[in-house]
Protein backbone atom coordinates (compact mmCIF):
# COMPACT_ATOMS: atom_id res chain seq x y z
CA UNK A 1 0.00 0.00 0.00
CA UNK A 2 2.90 2.30 0.49
CA UNK A 3 1.34 3.41 3.74
CA UNK A 4 4.79 3.84 5.28
CA UNK A 5 5.43 6.86 3.10
CA UNK A 6 2.48 8.57 4.78
CA UNK A 7 3.76 8.02 8.34
CA UNK A 8 5.15 11.53 8.60
CA UNK A 9 1.90 12.96 7.29
CA UNK A 10 -0.74 13.58 10.01
CA UNK A 11 -3.62 13.30 7.50
CA UNK A 12 -4.96 10.58 5.19
CA UNK A 13 -7.49 11.19 2.47
CA UNK A 14 -10.11 8.46 2.04
CA UNK A 15 -13.88 7.95 2.05
CA UNK A 16 -16.21 7.37 4.97
CA UNK A 17 -17.43 4.11 3.39
CA UNK A 18 -13.92 2.73 3.15
CA UNK A 19 -13.01 3.48 6.74
CA UNK A 20 -16.30 2.36 8.30
CA UNK A 21 -16.55 -0.79 6.22
CA UNK A 22 -12.92 -1.60 7.02
CA UNK A 23 -13.76 -1.37 10.70
CA UNK A 24 -16.98 -3.33 10.40
CA UNK A 25 -15.71 -6.22 8.38
CA UNK A 26 -12.87 -7.06 10.77
CA UNK A 27 -14.94 -6.80 13.94
CA UNK A 28 -18.08 -8.85 13.37
CA UNK A 29 -19.57 -10.20 16.58
CA UNK A 30 -21.35 -13.45 15.80
CA UNK A 31 -24.49 -14.71 17.51
CA UNK A 32 -24.64 -18.50 17.17
CA UNK A 33 -28.22 -19.63 16.58
CA UNK A 34 -27.35 -23.32 16.76
CA UNK A 35 -30.21 -25.78 16.51
CA UNK A 36 -28.50 -28.91 15.19
CA UNK A 37 -25.21 -30.59 14.31
CA UNK A 38 -23.93 -27.57 12.32
CA UNK A 39 -23.51 -25.84 15.67
CA UNK A 40 -21.06 -28.56 16.70
CA UNK A 41 -19.06 -27.83 13.56
CA UNK A 42 -19.09 -24.17 14.55
CA UNK A 43 -17.31 -25.14 17.77
CA UNK A 44 -14.48 -26.34 15.57
CA UNK A 45 -14.52 -23.03 13.73
CA UNK A 46 -14.07 -20.97 16.90
CA UNK A 47 -11.62 -23.48 18.40
CA UNK A 48 -7.86 -23.13 18.18
CA UNK A 49 -7.38 -25.27 15.07
CA UNK A 50 -9.44 -23.18 12.64
CA UNK A 51 -9.84 -20.12 14.83
CA UNK A 52 -12.31 -17.68 13.34
CA UNK A 53 -10.72 -14.91 15.42
CA UNK A 54 -7.99 -14.68 12.78
CA UNK A 55 -10.68 -13.07 10.65
CA UNK A 56 -11.96 -10.73 13.32
CA UNK A 57 -15.18 -12.58 14.07
CA UNK A 58 -14.09 -14.11 17.33
CA UNK A 59 -16.24 -12.44 19.96
CA UNK A 60 -19.21 -14.79 20.13
CA UNK A 61 -22.13 -13.07 21.83
CA UNK A 62 -25.15 -14.79 23.28
CA UNK A 63 -27.33 -11.72 23.30
CA UNK A 64 -28.71 -10.43 20.00
CA UNK A 65 -28.41 -6.88 21.32
CA UNK A 66 -24.63 -7.17 21.22
CA UNK A 67 -24.21 -9.06 17.95
CA UNK A 68 -24.17 -8.03 14.32
CA UNK A 69 -23.59 -11.37 12.61
CA UNK A 70 -26.37 -13.96 12.97
CA UNK A 71 -25.13 -17.46 12.26
CA UNK A 72 -28.10 -19.77 11.76
CA UNK A 73 -26.74 -23.27 12.13
CA UNK A 74 -29.16 -26.13 11.85
CA UNK A 75 -32.76 -27.16 11.27
CA UNK A 76 -35.36 -24.47 11.97
CA UNK A 77 -38.83 -25.85 12.64
CA UNK A 78 -42.08 -23.98 12.09
CA UNK A 79 -42.39 -23.77 15.86
CA UNK A 80 -38.93 -22.16 16.09
CA UNK A 81 -39.51 -19.70 13.23
CA UNK A 82 -41.05 -16.82 15.25
CA UNK A 83 -38.19 -17.10 17.76
CA UNK A 84 -35.59 -16.75 14.99
CA UNK A 85 -37.52 -13.76 13.62
CA UNK A 86 -37.62 -12.11 17.02
CA UNK A 87 -33.89 -12.63 17.59
CA UNK A 88 -33.14 -11.11 14.19
CA UNK A 89 -35.36 -8.13 14.99
CA UNK A 90 -33.57 -7.60 18.30
CA UNK A 91 -30.17 -7.22 16.64
CA UNK A 92 -29.07 -3.62 16.10
CA UNK A 93 -28.11 -2.50 12.63
CA UNK A 94 -25.90 -3.02 10.74
CA UNK A 95 -26.48 -6.78 10.81
CA UNK A 96 -25.76 -9.70 8.55
CA UNK A 97 -27.01 -13.27 8.38
CA UNK A 98 -25.14 -16.41 7.42
CA UNK A 99 -27.24 -19.48 6.73
CA UNK A 100 -24.99 -22.43 7.56
CA UNK A 101 -25.68 -25.87 6.14
CA UNK A 102 -28.34 -27.55 4.05
CA UNK A 103 -31.11 -27.41 6.68
CA UNK A 104 -30.96 -23.68 7.35
CA UNK A 105 -30.57 -22.88 3.66
CA UNK A 106 -33.26 -25.13 2.20
CA UNK A 107 -34.72 -27.39 4.85
CA UNK A 108 -32.22 -30.07 3.85
CA UNK A 109 -33.66 -33.54 3.70
CA UNK A 110 -36.38 -32.52 6.17
CA UNK A 111 -38.87 -31.90 3.38
CA UNK A 112 -41.81 -32.35 5.73
CA UNK A 113 -44.63 -30.76 7.68
CA UNK A 114 -42.57 -29.39 10.55
CA UNK A 115 -39.45 -27.80 9.05
CA UNK A 116 -39.05 -24.35 7.47
CA UNK A 117 -37.81 -24.84 3.92
CA UNK A 118 -34.99 -22.34 4.18
CA UNK A 119 -34.70 -19.48 6.68
CA UNK A 120 -34.96 -16.93 3.87
CA UNK A 121 -38.70 -17.47 4.23
CA UNK A 122 -38.39 -15.61 7.54
CA UNK A 123 -35.36 -13.32 7.51
CA UNK A 124 -33.00 -11.94 4.81
CA UNK A 125 -29.84 -13.98 4.28
CA UNK A 126 -26.48 -12.64 3.07
CA UNK A 127 -24.39 -15.78 2.66
CA UNK A 128 -25.45 -19.41 2.24
CA UNK A 129 -22.97 -22.12 3.21
CA UNK A 130 -23.35 -25.48 1.51
CA UNK A 131 -22.66 -28.77 3.28
CA UNK A 132 -24.21 -31.20 5.72
CA UNK A 133 -22.54 -30.06 7.86
CA UNK A 134 -20.16 -27.59 6.16
CA UNK A 135 -16.48 -27.96 6.93
CA UNK A 136 -14.87 -25.29 9.13
CA UNK A 137 -12.99 -24.03 6.08
CA UNK A 138 -16.34 -23.51 4.40
CA UNK A 139 -17.57 -21.37 7.31
CA UNK A 140 -14.39 -19.31 7.28
CA UNK A 141 -14.95 -18.94 3.53
CA UNK A 142 -18.40 -17.54 4.30
CA UNK A 143 -16.93 -15.00 6.72
CA UNK A 144 -14.41 -14.04 4.04
CA UNK A 145 -17.15 -13.67 1.42
CA UNK A 146 -19.17 -11.57 3.84
CA UNK A 147 -16.18 -9.31 4.42
CA UNK A 148 -15.94 -8.76 0.69
CA UNK A 149 -19.64 -7.95 0.63
CA UNK A 150 -19.38 -5.53 3.55
CA UNK A 151 -16.52 -3.67 1.90
CA UNK A 152 -18.82 -2.90 -1.04
CA UNK A 153 -21.64 -1.52 1.15
CA UNK A 154 -22.74 2.09 1.41
CA UNK A 155 -22.81 3.25 5.02
CA UNK A 156 -25.74 5.54 4.32
CA UNK A 157 -27.80 2.59 3.08
CA UNK A 158 -28.12 1.21 6.63
CA UNK A 159 -29.90 4.31 7.95
Amino acid sequence: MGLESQLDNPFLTTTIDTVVNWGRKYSMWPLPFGTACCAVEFMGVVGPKYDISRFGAELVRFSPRQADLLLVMGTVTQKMAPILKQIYDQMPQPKWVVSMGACASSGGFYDNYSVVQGIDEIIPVDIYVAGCPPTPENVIGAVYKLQQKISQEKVAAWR
Partner: protein
Amino acid sequence: MDQSQITDRLKARFGERILSTYAMCGQEAVTILPADLVEVLTFLRDEPELRFNMLMDVGGVDYLGFGGDGEDEDEVRSHRFEIAYQMFSYDLRHRYRVKVAVKDDSVEVPSLWEIWRGANWMEREVFDMFGIRFTGHPNLRRILNHDDFVGHPLRKDYPITKRQKLSRPIDHLLTDKQEWA
Protein backbone atom coordinates in the same frame (compact mmCIF):
# COMPACT_ATOMS: atom_id res chain seq x y z
CA MET B 1 -39.66 -64.51 32.10
CA ASP B 2 -39.58 -65.59 28.48
CA GLN B 3 -41.91 -63.57 26.26
CA SER B 4 -43.76 -66.67 25.03
CA GLN B 5 -44.58 -67.50 28.65
CA ILE B 6 -45.99 -64.00 29.10
CA THR B 7 -48.16 -64.54 26.02
CA ASP B 8 -49.39 -67.82 27.51
CA ARG B 9 -50.17 -66.14 30.81
CA LEU B 10 -52.23 -63.48 29.06
CA LYS B 11 -54.07 -66.04 26.94
CA ALA B 12 -54.89 -68.12 30.01
CA ARG B 13 -56.12 -65.10 31.91
CA PHE B 14 -58.03 -63.16 29.22
CA GLY B 15 -58.92 -65.88 26.68
CA GLU B 16 -61.08 -64.57 23.88
CA ARG B 17 -60.29 -60.96 24.67
CA ILE B 18 -56.83 -61.48 23.19
CA LEU B 19 -57.61 -60.84 19.53
CA SER B 20 -54.33 -62.11 18.09
CA THR B 21 -50.76 -62.86 19.02
CA TYR B 22 -47.53 -62.08 17.26
CA ALA B 23 -44.07 -63.62 17.54
CA MET B 24 -40.92 -62.77 15.63
CA CYS B 25 -37.33 -63.50 16.68
CA GLY B 26 -38.25 -63.83 20.34
CA GLN B 27 -40.26 -60.61 20.38
CA GLU B 28 -43.90 -61.33 21.14
CA ALA B 29 -46.99 -59.18 21.34
CA VAL B 30 -50.74 -59.47 21.79
CA THR B 31 -53.47 -57.36 20.21
CA ILE B 32 -56.45 -56.33 22.30
CA LEU B 33 -59.35 -53.88 22.16
CA PRO B 34 -59.35 -50.47 23.85
CA ALA B 35 -62.04 -51.58 26.28
CA ASP B 36 -59.70 -54.21 27.78
CA LEU B 37 -56.59 -52.03 27.79
CA VAL B 38 -56.60 -50.78 31.37
CA GLU B 39 -57.43 -54.22 32.76
CA VAL B 40 -54.72 -56.05 30.78
CA LEU B 41 -51.99 -53.52 31.46
CA THR B 42 -52.85 -53.25 35.14
CA PHE B 43 -52.53 -57.05 35.27
CA LEU B 44 -49.13 -56.84 33.58
CA ARG B 45 -47.97 -54.23 36.06
CA ASP B 46 -49.30 -55.80 39.27
CA GLU B 47 -48.90 -59.55 38.71
CA PRO B 48 -45.96 -60.58 40.97
CA GLU B 49 -44.32 -62.70 38.29
CA LEU B 50 -44.56 -59.99 35.63
CA ARG B 51 -44.14 -56.64 37.45
CA PHE B 52 -43.88 -54.39 34.38
CA ASN B 53 -43.15 -51.26 36.36
CA MET B 54 -42.07 -49.09 33.44
CA LEU B 55 -43.85 -47.99 30.30
CA MET B 56 -41.03 -47.53 27.82
CA ASP B 57 -42.91 -46.08 24.86
CA VAL B 58 -46.28 -45.49 23.30
CA GLY B 59 -46.43 -45.45 19.53
CA GLY B 60 -49.13 -45.10 16.92
CA VAL B 61 -49.55 -46.74 13.52
CA ASP B 62 -51.88 -45.70 10.71
CA TYR B 63 -52.82 -48.70 8.55
CA LEU B 64 -54.83 -46.71 6.02
CA GLY B 65 -54.58 -48.52 2.69
CA PHE B 66 -52.83 -51.54 4.18
CA GLY B 67 -54.01 -55.08 3.56
CA GLY B 68 -55.00 -57.51 6.25
CA ASP B 69 -52.76 -59.66 8.40
CA GLY B 70 -53.38 -62.81 6.37
CA GLU B 71 -52.27 -64.11 2.97
CA ASP B 72 -55.29 -62.77 1.10
CA GLU B 73 -54.20 -59.63 -0.76
CA ASP B 74 -57.73 -58.29 -1.13
CA GLU B 75 -58.45 -58.49 2.55
CA VAL B 76 -58.88 -55.12 4.21
CA ARG B 77 -57.64 -54.55 7.73
CA SER B 78 -60.54 -54.28 10.12
CA HIS B 79 -59.05 -51.31 11.94
CA ARG B 80 -57.18 -48.24 10.81
CA PHE B 81 -55.19 -47.25 13.88
CA GLU B 82 -53.08 -49.29 16.22
CA ILE B 83 -51.40 -48.13 19.41
CA ALA B 84 -48.35 -50.09 20.58
CA TYR B 85 -47.25 -50.07 24.22
CA GLN B 86 -43.71 -51.18 25.07
CA MET B 87 -43.16 -52.25 28.64
CA PHE B 88 -40.13 -53.14 30.70
CA SER B 89 -39.69 -54.66 34.14
CA TYR B 90 -36.81 -53.20 36.08
CA ASP B 91 -37.04 -55.97 38.67
CA LEU B 92 -37.28 -58.97 36.33
CA ARG B 93 -35.44 -57.54 33.30
CA HIS B 94 -38.01 -58.59 30.73
CA ARG B 95 -39.91 -56.72 28.06
CA TYR B 96 -43.26 -57.05 26.37
CA ARG B 97 -45.45 -55.32 23.82
CA VAL B 98 -49.22 -54.88 23.77
CA LYS B 99 -51.05 -53.51 20.74
CA VAL B 100 -54.50 -51.98 20.75
CA ALA B 101 -56.66 -52.16 17.64
CA VAL B 102 -58.74 -48.97 17.35
CA LYS B 103 -61.79 -50.08 15.38
CA ASP B 104 -64.05 -47.30 16.56
CA ASP B 105 -64.30 -44.19 14.36
CA SER B 106 -64.19 -42.00 17.46
CA VAL B 107 -60.53 -43.08 17.85
CA GLU B 108 -60.81 -43.11 21.61
CA VAL B 109 -58.45 -45.11 23.78
CA PRO B 110 -58.34 -44.98 27.59
CA SER B 111 -55.36 -43.12 28.99
CA LEU B 112 -52.77 -45.02 31.01
CA TRP B 113 -51.90 -42.02 33.12
CA GLU B 114 -53.45 -43.64 36.15
CA ILE B 115 -51.24 -46.72 35.72
CA TRP B 116 -47.94 -45.16 34.68
CA ARG B 117 -47.42 -41.40 35.10
CA GLY B 118 -44.88 -41.52 32.26
CA ALA B 119 -47.69 -42.13 29.79
CA ASN B 120 -48.59 -38.44 29.97
CA TRP B 121 -46.22 -37.00 27.34
CA MET B 122 -46.09 -40.16 25.23
CA GLU B 123 -49.85 -40.10 24.80
CA ARG B 124 -49.72 -36.40 23.99
CA GLU B 125 -47.27 -37.21 21.19
CA VAL B 126 -49.54 -39.91 19.77
CA PHE B 127 -52.46 -37.49 20.01
CA ASP B 128 -50.44 -34.81 18.24
CA MET B 129 -49.30 -37.06 15.40
CA PHE B 130 -52.29 -39.38 14.92
CA GLY B 131 -55.23 -37.65 16.59
CA ILE B 132 -55.96 -40.53 18.96
CA ARG B 133 -58.03 -39.21 21.85
CA PHE B 134 -56.92 -40.65 25.17
CA THR B 135 -59.89 -40.49 27.49
CA GLY B 136 -59.00 -39.63 31.07
CA HIS B 137 -55.76 -37.92 30.10
CA PRO B 138 -55.15 -34.92 32.38
CA ASN B 139 -53.73 -32.57 29.73
CA LEU B 140 -54.30 -33.77 26.19
CA ARG B 141 -52.67 -30.94 24.23
CA ARG B 142 -50.21 -30.94 21.34
CA ILE B 143 -46.65 -31.52 22.47
CA LEU B 144 -44.47 -31.29 19.33
CA ASN B 145 -46.33 -29.31 16.68
CA HIS B 146 -47.15 -25.67 17.24
CA ASP B 147 -50.44 -24.48 18.69
CA ASP B 148 -51.91 -23.26 15.38
CA PHE B 149 -51.33 -26.61 13.67
CA VAL B 150 -54.43 -28.16 12.10
CA GLY B 151 -54.66 -31.90 11.55
CA HIS B 152 -52.36 -34.75 12.47
CA PRO B 153 -49.25 -35.05 10.28
CA LEU B 154 -48.43 -38.75 10.63
CA ARG B 155 -51.85 -39.82 9.40
CA LYS B 156 -51.53 -41.37 5.97
CA ASP B 157 -54.13 -39.00 4.52
CA TYR B 158 -52.24 -35.90 5.64
CA PRO B 159 -50.96 -34.20 2.44
CA ILE B 160 -47.22 -34.78 2.31
CA THR B 161 -46.43 -31.33 0.89
CA LYS B 162 -48.73 -29.39 3.20
CA ARG B 163 -46.97 -26.69 5.23
CA GLN B 164 -48.42 -24.80 8.17
CA LYS B 165 -46.69 -21.70 9.39
CA LEU B 166 -46.82 -20.31 12.91
CA SER B 167 -47.07 -16.59 12.35
CA ARG B 168 -47.90 -15.53 15.89
CA PRO B 169 -45.20 -13.72 17.88
CA ILE B 170 -43.60 -15.78 20.60
CA ASP B 171 -45.07 -13.76 23.46
CA HIS B 172 -47.89 -16.22 23.99
CA LEU B 173 -45.32 -18.94 24.66
CA LEU B 174 -44.06 -16.93 27.59
CA THR B 175 -47.32 -15.61 28.97
CA ASP B 176 -49.74 -18.51 28.58
CA LYS B 177 -50.19 -20.54 31.69
CA GLN B 178 -48.64 -23.93 31.05
CA GLU B 179 -50.31 -26.91 32.66
CA TRP B 180 -47.64 -29.53 33.21
CA ALA B 181 -49.86 -32.02 35.05
